[in-house]
């Protein structure tokens, strides 16, 4: 374990650590462009030069291994002069695009200039090298060759992460520009990541282009609701509108990457109408809006009536694998604990779909729901009833009379979704009494006996359990207009009405209860469930 001194601070690091990583451990920031913790080292920007005692020339800290007894200086005059020099060189041919560039506010050139530069430009505008601007590289990415600092992060991403090698340098000297081979379009399902890793505004997002200046945005930590991988991400939003999703670095789950579908998944939420008020179907067969109190009481009494008359086996609890752990926990507490239901399901698509099966060998998984593992760990599946098909048949035979269904439409679409949704619709039609908790209006929702409006992903605090069994927190970013409640709150109300002793006021309280009650989740704290998330017990 080599010990080295950086700026007078002595630290011990693992063998094989480079100086820049060691500095990070010590809390010292070394400016850099081409270095990225999840990409191979390239050492071409020359920004991370530091002084290492007994080395005649400055060394690049991203490629120099920390050795025992090394003494490093990152902020003495010689290093500061060198950083300022490299910055001045980078800005020599850089276009004065800040007013129109989307990267403004989160641009490494701007940030480093304010700290290390603050020099006056000594090159007239006419002398700057001109290259192509506003090049459509693909559906997700816009390229501006003039802004590029040629750090090669995008090239290394496509070479070493997706192994597709779409981007390359063309030309020589100060006319080098990045681009795709033969200007072919970039249709890689991970192309959005180069927008994140580009330190300047050369690669920008087509979807986010010009929508909002970044300093107006608020960031909320969350987890992707697209598939069971559960990539850590953050939601950037302003005044109730989500503008973009960015990855958070989680070495255990998604490193620094997101797939394009997950990145665009927030558009699904805005598409389609929302259910805004609780509705109960009256004697005339038409749904009428009611207040929550009335809806909840009606549901509780009706469910218990059916249970008393036909037995607990005539009620089905159909959870959604997109609901949060807290929601599923209280769902179980109410349905099993208060009503006595024993029959649970959560899969509307194919029954044998694996939670862990990969769709490609990078991030995506076949199961397009974020919390299937949560439903499994909480025991919300009873295999002996033949899945949803069995439930529908059972309902047609008259054995199944009621169903409480939580339904969220998937944020990442696949051709099989329609079929899955139609099965849920059939189930609702088949039973006598159906309570549906939904966020978006569907054409079959009018046939349910009771409709309870709920908040969807990004609109509530909660946690999800990914395919690894890792619990991660997703925080609320936006609040939709209407009388929706988080799913967990609906069941808290039902529990209260049913006479249970409850004391939860926030999702965090429910989480605490969950970790105390459920054996798989025992011992996990809220703090642990932030980055990188905590693993549940193997049960």
């Amino acid at each position, binding site marked *: 374990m080599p010990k080295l001194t950086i700026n007078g601070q002595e630290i011990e690091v693992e063998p094989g650590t480079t100086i820049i990583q060691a500095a990070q451990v010590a809390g010292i920031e070394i400016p850099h462009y081409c270095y990225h913790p999840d990409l191979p080292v390239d050492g071409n920007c020359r920004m991370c030069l530091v002084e290492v005692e007994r080395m005649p020339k400055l060394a690049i800290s991203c490629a120099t291994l920390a050795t025992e007894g090394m003494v490093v200086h990152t902020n003495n005059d010689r290093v500061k002069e060198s950083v300022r020099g490299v910055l001045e060189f980078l800005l020599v041919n850089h276009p004065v695009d*800040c*007013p*129109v560039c989307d990267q403004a506010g989160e641009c490494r050139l701007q940030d480093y200039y304010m700290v290390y530069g603050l020099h006056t430009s000594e090159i007239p505008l006419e002398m700057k090298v001109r290259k192509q601007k*506003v090049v459509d590289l693909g559906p997700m990415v816009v390229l501006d060759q003039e802004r590029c600092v040629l750090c090669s992060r995008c090239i290394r991403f496509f070479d070493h992460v997706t192994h597709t090698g779409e981007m390359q340098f063309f030309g020589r000297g100060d006319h080098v520009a990045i681009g795709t081979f033969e200007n072919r379009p970039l249709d890689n399902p991970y192309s959005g990541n180069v927008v994140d890793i580009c330190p300047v505004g050369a690669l920008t997002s087509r979807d986010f282009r*010009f929508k909002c200046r970044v*300093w*107006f945005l608020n960031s909320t930590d969350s987890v992707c609701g697209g598939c069971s991988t559960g990539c850590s991400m953050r939601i950037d939003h302003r005044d109730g509108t989500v503008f973009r999703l960015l990855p958070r670095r989680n070495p255990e789950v998604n490193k620094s990457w997101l797939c394009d579908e997950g990145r665009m998944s927030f558009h699904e939420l805005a598409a389609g109408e929302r259910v805004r008020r609780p509705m109960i179907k009256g004697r005339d067969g038409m749904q009428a809006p009611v207040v929550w109190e009335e809806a909840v009481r009606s549901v509780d009494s009706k469910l218990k009536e059916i249970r008393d008359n036909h037995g607990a086996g005539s009620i089905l609890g159909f959870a959604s694998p997109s609901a949060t752990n807290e929601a599923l926990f209280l769902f179980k507490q109410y349905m099993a604990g208060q009503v006595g239901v024993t029959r649970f399901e959560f899969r509307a698509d194919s029954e044998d779909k694996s939670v862990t099966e990969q769709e490609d060998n990078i991030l995506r998984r076949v199961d397009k729901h974020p919390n299937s593992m949560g439903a499994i760990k909480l025991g919300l599946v009873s295999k002996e009833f033949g899945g949803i098909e069995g439930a529908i048949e059972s309902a047609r035979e008259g054995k199944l009379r009621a169903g409480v269904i939580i339904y969220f439409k998937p944020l990442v679409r696949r051709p099989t979704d329609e079929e899955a949704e139609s099965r849920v619709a059939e189930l609702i039609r088949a039973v006598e009494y159906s309570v549906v908790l939904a966020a978006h209006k569907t054409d079959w929702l009018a046939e349910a006996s009771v409709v309870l409006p709920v908040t969807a992903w990004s609109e509530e605090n909660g946690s999800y359990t990914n395919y690894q069994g890792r619990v991660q927190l997703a925080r609320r970013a936006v609040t939709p207009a209407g009388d929706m409640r988080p799913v967990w709150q609906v069941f808290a109300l039902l529990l209260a009405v049913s006479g249970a002793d409850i004391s939860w006021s926030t999702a965090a309280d429910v989480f605490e209860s969950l970790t105390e009650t459920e054996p798989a989740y025992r011992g996990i704290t809220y703090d642990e469930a932030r980055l990188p998330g905590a693993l549940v017990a193997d049960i």
Partner: protein
Amino acid sequence: MKKTPKVVNVADRAREEASVAKEILGPLVGMKLTLTRMVENMTGKVDPTIRYPEERRAYSDRYRGAHILTAREDGSPRCVACYMCATACPADCIYIEPGEHPDPLIEKYPTRFEIDMLRCVFCGFCVDACPEEAIIMSRETEICAFGRGETIWGIDRLMKRPELPEFGLGYRPNKELVDSRLAFVPKEKVQKRLAGRVTMKEDVEMIPHVTFDPLKESEKR
């Protein structure tokens, strides 16, 4: 030795010193300043009153009045929707919606640019913040409306200002701004100097006066 005070009978003294001349001229002497001023005012030698709207106060070169969006040679707004003004505005009164400009060298332009003139505090931060000299202010202060809807000024209202020659350009940090950046060709500034007028208000520059005869103007139209 203690001096005994002299006793004066003021009534007696008054009677002794009084005269008709003193009775008449005394008040006049005391009111010399007042009467002088009265004469000056009446003859028009001194005229501190600005008879608005026929006469208007001349504002300084950097007066912060109503905003103007400057134009390129082809008449389109110079603004690139960078949001510096909207961010700098302390009253949060600028609303911009950006659009993609077909020319890659310009790239961005505002499809909507609105200033809520009722929220605006005319601080001029927007002009300071603008990197493109796209927004400046004029010396126009007469911005009234018949309803609240009219108080939100869009791009058209901010660019086309036929009445501008009367008021003149105001706050712009860069003095080399050329008139060609306006969305119209300004007429020659109307300058009229009222002869023989002297002002007592040194803090106000009375030159140039601008006169505006409402009857004459309506005849022109």
